[in-house]
């Protein structure tokens, strides 16, 4: 009896490892989209006209499960568009999107909600004296945010942003339900072929863990350099 049947799982390891790329791809795209939209949300929050939208957006994305958001974007929205335009207006457009695109959109939109909260608290931690000095020197709001407030806010929120990225890596595992061949989906496929639950799960578990450790270590390094 083998507790861990390495020989049997060994041929499947390269197949499993390919999932790292997909997992990282989704996390990276989501992080970039999330960051840009997150900053936009922060700026919207500062303007009365957009504030309601920004708050509602953040509230909804933080207040519902990611799996629901993913399912709505992948399954429900194309169906809705199909009903409105094809059934309603007699058009003939294919609204289906690829699973990967749905993952980019969902994780990007979801991450934006969290990133905006992180940056907002980063902005709140900027010394009000610096803002006062900027006003007293006649520095425009645009320059004040671009060159004084936001760089400081990013620096202050850097650890929390890394944390958000790590969370993203972990949460990408839900894309397996829409058929994307990420680490988790590949484990299910391997297990279906080999009946090896334990080995396959432990291996992708190690992949996730190492991935996250690597990014955490890079982040800590950057933090030290950044703090100089």
């Amino acid at each position, binding site marked *: 009896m083998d507790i861990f049947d390495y020989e049997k799982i060994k041929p499947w390891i390269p197949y499993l490892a390919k999932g790292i790329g997909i997992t990282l791809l989704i996390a990276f795209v989501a992080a970039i989209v999330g960051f840009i939209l997150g900053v936009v949300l922060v700026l919207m929050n500062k303007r009365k006209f957009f504030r309601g939208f920004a708050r509602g957006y953040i509230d909804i994305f933080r207040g519902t499960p990611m799996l629901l958001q993913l399912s709505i974007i992948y399954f429900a929205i194309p169906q809705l568009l199909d009903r409105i335009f094809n059934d309603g207006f007699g058009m003939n457009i294919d609204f289906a999107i690829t699973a990967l695109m749905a993952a980019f959109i969902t994780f990007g939109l979801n991450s934006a909600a969290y990133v905006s909260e992180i940056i907002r608290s980063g902005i709140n931690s900027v010394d009000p*004296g*610096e803002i*006062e000095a900027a*006003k007293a*020197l*006649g*520095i425009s709001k645009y320059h004040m945010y671009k*060159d*004084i407030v936001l760089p400081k806010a990013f620096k202050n929120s850097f650890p929390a942003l890394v944390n958000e990225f790590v969370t993203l890596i972990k949460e990408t595992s839900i894309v397996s339900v829409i058929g994307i061949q990420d680490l988790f989906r590949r484990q299910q496929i391997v297990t279906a072929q080999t009946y090896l639950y334990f080995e396959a799960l432990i291996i992708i578990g190690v992949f996730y863990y190492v991935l996250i450790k690597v990014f955490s270590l890079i982040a800590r390094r950057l933090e030290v350099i950044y703090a100089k």
Partner: protein
Amino acid sequence: MITLIDVHKSFGDIEVLKGISHEFQKGKTTVILGASGSGKSTLLRTINQLTPIDEGKVLFEGVDVTTIKHRQLVARIGIVFQQFNLFSGMNVLQNVMYTLVKEKKLNKDKAREMAMISLDKVNMASRLDAYPKHLSGGEKQRVALARAMVLSPDVMLFDEPTSALDPEKVNEVLDEIKKLTHIGLTNIIVTHEMGFAREVADEVIFMDEGRIIETGSKEAFFQHPKAERTKQFLDKIL
């Protein structure tokens, strides 16, 4: 130069300025004295609109400051804060150059040259690359002074410029401010440094609980104070 007419300001339920009227003369140095919480700093900040007032009027060269574009107003009025308020993400040179480049639209070489001159005047030209966190309080305040002066204001406001400094650093900052009292600037200084006030003031204002209690030349103020409250104050600190 600057005229305050019955200025009132409240923060929440607390009335900090209870009807201040005063005229600050062009080219003169006015020192505002008073206990903590008497409204001195608030008064100072109403002049450059950092603190908008509730009632009354603040006139700059006869014009209501609320009708002047903020940017135009502050281009004429420099301020130095108690807590320095340097931009912590920029080095010494960038702190001084920034407004010249971004808001005055000067080219970098010209801005750099002006910043160097301004920093040289406060003996900080040797620390151009240093970030604020590596500077002493006295050094920070001198950079802050250079940052304000590089914009060549007509009026300088000083909000307790030495209160956050180590005692041995106070003079290095006061010496720099003294220089500014001889070049035709209109200086308005909130301070607790009595020796300094006696030396530089053309006029002294004494405030208590949101009101101006007494004004006068430094000789009159320090040697023959009229109000009882002023006498008590001077007795305690001199």
